[in-house]
């Protein structure tokens, strides 16, 4: 087993464990911290796939900006204690069972696909580099890129308008 395969398994275990901790922690602040750990592990996966640009963007946008926003909101509402009343036991069990059933259905539907022999290239490949993605983004995909700036502007206006008092 090569070092990249070993890293894949370590990162996968880290992703799944921290995702489970996000769902199971009672304290919302702990959930946010575990979600940040999840994002860092996913960024590790991106680096392993040589998608360097996405790894950095994932850390900056998700772990940096979005999670800080979540933390601010949680602390603004003073939710950093275990104040959440637990949902009814049977409802929790039903939720877990239906999620597990979804997992089971998807795995059993996809375990014999013809993709099985395909490999995903680790470490090598130049398509994840900033140069390639930037050239592609500013030539072929320049219109969606500019449209996303309009989306951001409208999201900003919407957030200010909704968050305004009265």
């Amino acid at each position: 087993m090569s070092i990249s395969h070993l890293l894949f398994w370590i990162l996968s275990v880290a992703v799944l464990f921290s995702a489970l901790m996000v769902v199971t922690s009672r304290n919302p602040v702990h959930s946010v911290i575990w979600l940040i750990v999840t994002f860092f592990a996913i960024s590790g996966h991106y680096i392993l796939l040589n998608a360097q640009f996405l790894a950095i963007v994932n850390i900056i946008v998700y772990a940096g900006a979005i999670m800080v926003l979540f933390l601010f909101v949680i602390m603004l509402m003073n939710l950093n204690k275990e104040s959440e009343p637990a949902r009814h036991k049977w409802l929790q069990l039903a939720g877990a069972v239906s999620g597990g059933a979804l997992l089971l259905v998807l795995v059993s539907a996809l375990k014999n696909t013809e993709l099985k022999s395909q490999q995903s290239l680790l470490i090598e490949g130049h398509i994840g580099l900033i140069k390639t993605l930037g050239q592609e983004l500013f030539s072929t995909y320049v219109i969606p890129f500019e449209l996303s700036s309009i989306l951001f502007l409208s999201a900003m206006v919407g957030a200010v308008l909704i968050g305004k008092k009265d």
Partner: protein
Amino acid sequence: MPINYYLFLAIALFSIGVVGVLTRRNAIIIFMCIELMLNAVNLLLVAFSKMHYQQAVAAALPIANPGVEGQLFVFFIMVVAAAEVSVGLAIIVMLYRNIHSVDINFLNRLKH
């Protein structure tokens, strides 16, 4: 690395997000579980993009950047997720200001 492993990892991550949405009552944590699901999809898109890259390289196809669309798609998903989070958190803050709780069981006021 076989694409199957990435497929199952993403499915497991997505299912954990679904379980979180179904079992928690705090609106913010439900929102975070939605982010978890988005990230599962992103991870799978990047893995598929590298799979297409390897296929195109192995077949020596005359394409400039095979598989780059997948990574750009992930980039746009991140853009939309950032916009969605800002608006969603503004809505949650407004709800908290009005009903002093983020428990989703109290969020059925639209029908009254």
